[in-house]
């Protein structure tokens, strides 16, 4: 069994409520942090831990925190990004609905460390019931003196609010999130300035993912060095993986970074193998925007080393033969899956979610969706595959925010690894399953003979 530090207590009945949470060690970090640590010491522990942003980008959290500007007399803000919208990702929802106090505890620690007196949790609107769970937990925390004025008699004050979004993937991008929190359309801002200098209301702001903020709790409790002792290479600690698709046991799993991908897919501790005894065809390992990999490249690197669930190992080989850990949205596809059709659902998604600010993304995502729709309906031509490749290459790197890349990468990877399937689909006007295609040919031969 791998070490669990965020979800160690997730199955305890009533852990959602303050008294049970506290009975199992909840809020112990506050006693320690507020009474015996300076804010700077907490930032140092987070740096030592090697924690990297768990929303998808994997940027070192301690470094992000150290960029925060601290001008005199200007408020600073900590904003939790709970806008979880990357297709294939549902770990933050799980964490918040099961153990809301873990996030609240992490928010108090982070706010203390960064000198914020007001903090917000921005949650996607569709998670309406999760927002209610968080609000109930926040009410409990206020009543117990864990939020509000003079928390635990430390002299530290903090107000924490839940802000609800209204359906927009783009608001998971941190500057779009801040725009939305200010009551505007979720159009990403041009950076610089980064939020650390000019974020919410133009004030220095840190935006961190739910899982990142929750991880600050064990880092303060056990120390950054203990956290850094878990994992492999520059992938420290544990990661929540949202496993879905054609597997026997979909769900959220906390893994020690470095578990082999093969073990993660096939062992009963995690996904439990492919559903209905089918064979594995492909995996999208880190949420819809990361490159899809066929079986041979997801289980092993191009050099033949076993692929591990870590930032470095999944990234091994660059985009030619590798992918990214991303948000940990692990989508598994069996041998019957049409890569073309799955890609269409992604292309439609990104077209729907483009904010429309930058032409390459606004026009390119729509164009890619149209071409894939045409292929799916039997009207594709072989030239369309090259056209798709051309369009995606003209979106990447040419937009204000990374939605452009997020839309381009899945298209590029699907063509890179499954070009023949696109061509077969176009020639036959439908999905051609290698196995079924073979039988159909055999039957045909039998008929002729």
């Amino acid at each position, binding site marked *: 069994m791998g070490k669990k530090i965020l979800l160690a207590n997730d199955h305890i*009945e009533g852990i*959602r409520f303050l008294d049970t949470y506290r009975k199992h060690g909840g809020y112990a970090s506050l006693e320690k942090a507020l009474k015996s640590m300076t804010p700077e010491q907490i930032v140092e522990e987070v740096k030592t831990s090697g924690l990297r942003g768990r929303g998808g980008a994997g940027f070192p959290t301690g470094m992000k925190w150290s960029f925060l500007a601290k001008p005199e007399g200007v*408020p600073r803000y900590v904003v939790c990004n709970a806008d*979880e*919208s990357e*297709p*294939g*990702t*549902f770990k933050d929802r799980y964490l918040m*609905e099961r153990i809301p106090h873990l996030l609240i505890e992490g928010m108090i620690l982070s706010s203390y460390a960064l000198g914020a007196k*007001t903090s917000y949790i921005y949650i*996607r*609107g*569709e*998670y*309406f*019931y999760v927002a*209610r*769970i968080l609000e*109930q937990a926040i009410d409990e925390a206020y009543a117990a003196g864990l939020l509000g004025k003079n928390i635990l008699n430390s002299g530290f004050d903090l*107000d924490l*609010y839940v*802000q*609800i*979004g*209204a*359906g*927009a*993937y783009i608001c998971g991008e941190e500057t779009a999130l801040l725009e*939305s*929190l*200010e*009551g*505007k*359309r*979720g159009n990403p801002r041009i950076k610089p300035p980064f939020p650390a200098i000019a974020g919410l*209301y133009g004030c220095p702001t840190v935006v961190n993912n739910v899982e990142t903020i929750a991880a600050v709790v064990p880092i303060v409790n056990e120390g950054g060095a203990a956290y850094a002792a878990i994992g492999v290479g520059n992938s420290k600690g544990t990661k929540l993986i*949202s*496993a*879905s*698709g*054609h597997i026997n046991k*979909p*769900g*959220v799993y906390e893994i020690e970074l470095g578990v082999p991908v093969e073990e993660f897919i096939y062992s009963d501790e995690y996904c439990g193998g492919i559903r209905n005894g089918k064979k594995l065809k492909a995996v*999208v390992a880190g949420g*819809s925007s990361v490159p899809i990999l066929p079986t041979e490249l997801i289980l092993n690197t191009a050099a033949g080393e076993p692929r591990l669930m870590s930032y470095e190992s999944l990234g091994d080989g660059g985009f030619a033969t590798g992918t990214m850990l991303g948000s940990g*949205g692990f*989508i598994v*596809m069996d041998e019957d*899956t049409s890569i073309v*059709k*799955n890609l269409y*659902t*992604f292309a*439609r*998604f990104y077209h*729907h*979610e483009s*904010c429309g600010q930058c032409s390459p993304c606004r026009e390119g995502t729509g164009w890619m969706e149209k071409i894939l729709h045409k292929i799916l309906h039997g009207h594709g031509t072989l030239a369309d595959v090259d056209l798709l490749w051309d369009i995606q290459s003209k979106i990447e790197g040419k937009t204000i925010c990374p939605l452009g890349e997020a839309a381009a990468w899945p298209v590029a990877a699907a063509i890179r690894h499954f070009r023949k399937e696109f061509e077969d689909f176009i020639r036959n006007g439908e999905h051609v399953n290698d196995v079924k295609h073979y039988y159909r040919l055999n039957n045909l031969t039998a008929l002729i003979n």
Partner: protein
Amino acid sequence: MSEKTILKFSDETAAIATKIVARYPEGRHKSALIPLLHLAQAEFDGWLSVPAMDCVAEFLSIQPIEAYEVASFYSMFNLKPVGKCTLEVCRTSSCWLSGAEDIVRHLEKKLGIKEGQTTADGMFTLKTVECLGSCGTAPMLQCGGDYYENLTLEKTDKLVDSLRAEGKARVYTNDNPVNID
């Protein structure tokens, strides 16, 4: 000339809205716009008519256009009337891999409408939506604030029948019970 419709929050909703506005620093009350549009949508029949958006703009002392431009950006705000229950079926990758398309086709047949349409009795609107973060419990649909997961055709039938028997509007409100575990 027809008179301009003017909508106002009920006292109860206005009290909630006032509390929300207090969450932000002075002069930053516009931050309350999205939460208040949700309140307006819940109070005024599940969609945001121009008078409903004007009501929010008036409450926040902002220009009506500021409310319109935000309402039109976010997919959860309905700018046209909807049925009492909007069935929002997720259609993105993991749900699609798990048979979301079958659920949509089944609902279209059962309700006698196409996706995007509302039944003649005004009871149901059928929508497809992008990933709702329920990939491990796919396929799924959302109605009001509630998630209905691991759907089968039979479960979908039962849900529609029970919603129809209940006959009540399902909207996002703070009255929704939190029923997990």
